[in-house]
């Protein structure tokens, strides 16, 4: 074998792609805004409340929280659900636009003559998944700091009793949610040929994924009622719905397991379909003759 060529193991190339995806997206404005700036603002708000709200008793906080037009114990899980969905969606959105961009500027041809379709997609999903997890970790750190500064947040959100099992389950649903949306968007990216086409579709999927966070306000008075239960079984709404339900109450174990199984089966089915048609679709792109996409 010629000098200069060292065998790159299968995993190595996947990890190289993952590393590249992570570092080339971590400095994007959209990511920095949501993963750094918004959490810092949140923390500052908590600090301000802590400074100006001293001397208020726990009971008084609870009464005030319940007296707001929409009770805060429902609003906070809703906001958390939205953060959860957006964290998933921002990372998987990079996957969608990344694939389309590589198709538009023909880098896809160089990539596929260097690595396999599976290495490419797996590398991207892993790298951007790390981006999503980094984002979530940032929010967890900020939330812990906020709670330390302002314990009233926990009372307001009825989260005093949050335990390790709940955190594990929420993490499981976060990872499942990320993989679900990442595979859906990878599939969409592989058939689309233009970033302009992607905007309305990604908008529609964001809306669907955020649905549970919005309707939580109306239906989550009883988080185990029919509407949240049904949403827990629909693949695109299941991860967020279950994460919110786990946060607010103790959903029946059978429902948690069913929801996980449905999501896993959906992910597997999408991966199967995407891989089967990937090469065919990856080379379909709009007829453009520009050097850069």
């Amino acid at each position, binding site marked *: 074998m*010629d*000098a*200069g*060529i*060292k*065998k*790159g193991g*299968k995993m190595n*190339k996947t990890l*190289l*792609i993952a590393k*590249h995806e992570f570092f*080339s997206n971590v400095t994007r404005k959209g990511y920095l805004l949501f993963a750094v700036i918004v959490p810092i603002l949140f923390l500052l708000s908590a600090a301000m409340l802590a400074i100006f709200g001293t001397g208020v008793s726990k009971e008084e906080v609870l009464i005030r929280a319940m007296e707001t037009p929409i009770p805060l114990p429902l609003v906070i899980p809703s906001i958390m659900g939205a953060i959860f969905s957006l964290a998933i969606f921002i990372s998987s959105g990079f996957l969608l636009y990344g694939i389309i961009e590589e198709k*538009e*500027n*023909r*880098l896809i*041809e*160089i*990539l*596929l*003559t*260097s*690595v*396999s379709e599976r290495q490419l997609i797996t590398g991207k999903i892993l790298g951007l998944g790390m981006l999503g997890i980094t984002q979530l970790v940032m929010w967890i750190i900020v939330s812990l700091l906020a709670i330390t500064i302002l314990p009233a947040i926990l009372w307001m959100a009825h989260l005093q009793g949050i335990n390790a099992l709940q955190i594990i389950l929420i993490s499981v649903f976060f990872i499942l949610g990320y993989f679900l949306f990442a595979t859906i968007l990878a599939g969409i990216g592989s058939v689309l040929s233009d970033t302009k086409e992607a905007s309305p579709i990604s908008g529609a999927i964001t809306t669907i994924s955020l649905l549970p966070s919005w309707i939580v306000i109306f239906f989550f008075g009883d988080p185990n009622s029919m509407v949240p239960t049904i949403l827990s079984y629909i693949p695109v709404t299941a991860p967020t719905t279950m994460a919110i339900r786990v946060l607010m109450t103790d959903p029946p174990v059978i429902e948690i397991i069913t929801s996980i199984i449905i999501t896993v089966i959906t992910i597997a089915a999408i991966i199967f379909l995407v891989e089967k048609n990937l*090469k*065919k679709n990856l*080379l379909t792109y709009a007829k*453009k*003759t*520009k*050097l*850069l*996409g």
Partner: protein
Amino acid sequence: MAKEKTPEENAFAGTAKTLQKKRETIAVKVEGISKNFGKTKAVDGVSFEAKNGEIFGLLGPNGAGKTTTIRIMLNLIENYKGSVEILGGTCTEKTKDLIGYLPEERGLYKNVTALEAIKYLASLKGMQEEEAEGKALQLMREMNLMEHKDKKIFELSKGTQQKIQIISSIIHNPSLFVLDEPFSGLDPISVKFIIEIIEREKNKGKAIILSTHNMNIAEQVCERVMVINKGRRVLYGNTRQIKERYSRESTIIELAEETEEAEKKIGEIIGIKKVIAKNANTFELLLDVNLKPEDALKALVSKGLEIRRFETTAPSLESIFLTVVESEQWMQE
């Protein structure tokens, strides 16, 4: 008594022998490939071989099926008829590290620096980071790109981006180079440099498949060529032999003065298959085998044209290309 060879001479003779042996081996063997896109036949029963240690020209007009042929060869397109053998087998993940591919339409990640872009693509070909950086800097130095190494890709001119991409496709020392229109948009100095690189690699025993519209370069560097048109192979073989085969048919004439109707008048002469204007008063004529050059000269004079030079010559690859593409005659090697 014959002088004994030094170890160096023996080593050189051994290397030369090995290289010669390598040159006889086939790097790419394509047999009867066909691919339809809907009702369009993009490639229709194309076969060819590219050998190690040669530059093989893949020529054809726009939309002839060159890029589809390359994509089938590199396993970027599936579900085709026919067979492809590349570097001794099918195109696997291991084979990919041995191929350097420059696609026709090009692009790079916009938000990374030139050096990072090269290093990343080199790493996907199995190169270690330090090794990739060293080689990238060496090639950038050779191509006078050092001032651009830390600039983001979007800040660079198209020509510079193209040079970066050429470096990315050759950096990993591949055994097979597949270069689709590598010269388009490059200045003459860069074209010369690229030609030097591919000739150097050829001399090392590497196989080079060069798809280009530039017939002068193809004629200059390709040992063998294949012309495809409308998905079909219309010309295939050794460049020199092809030119010899057409040599009696080509004539260069230079007129004493420029006349507007000269090309039309020449074209009217029966037996002149093609008139290619080289400049305002110089034309290359392809003669039918039944038309002798002396008769052609008489016919030109009888048309009132004043001839300054009349020369029977080997035709340019361009004129052969235009003839075969237009007449679509099928020729076997």
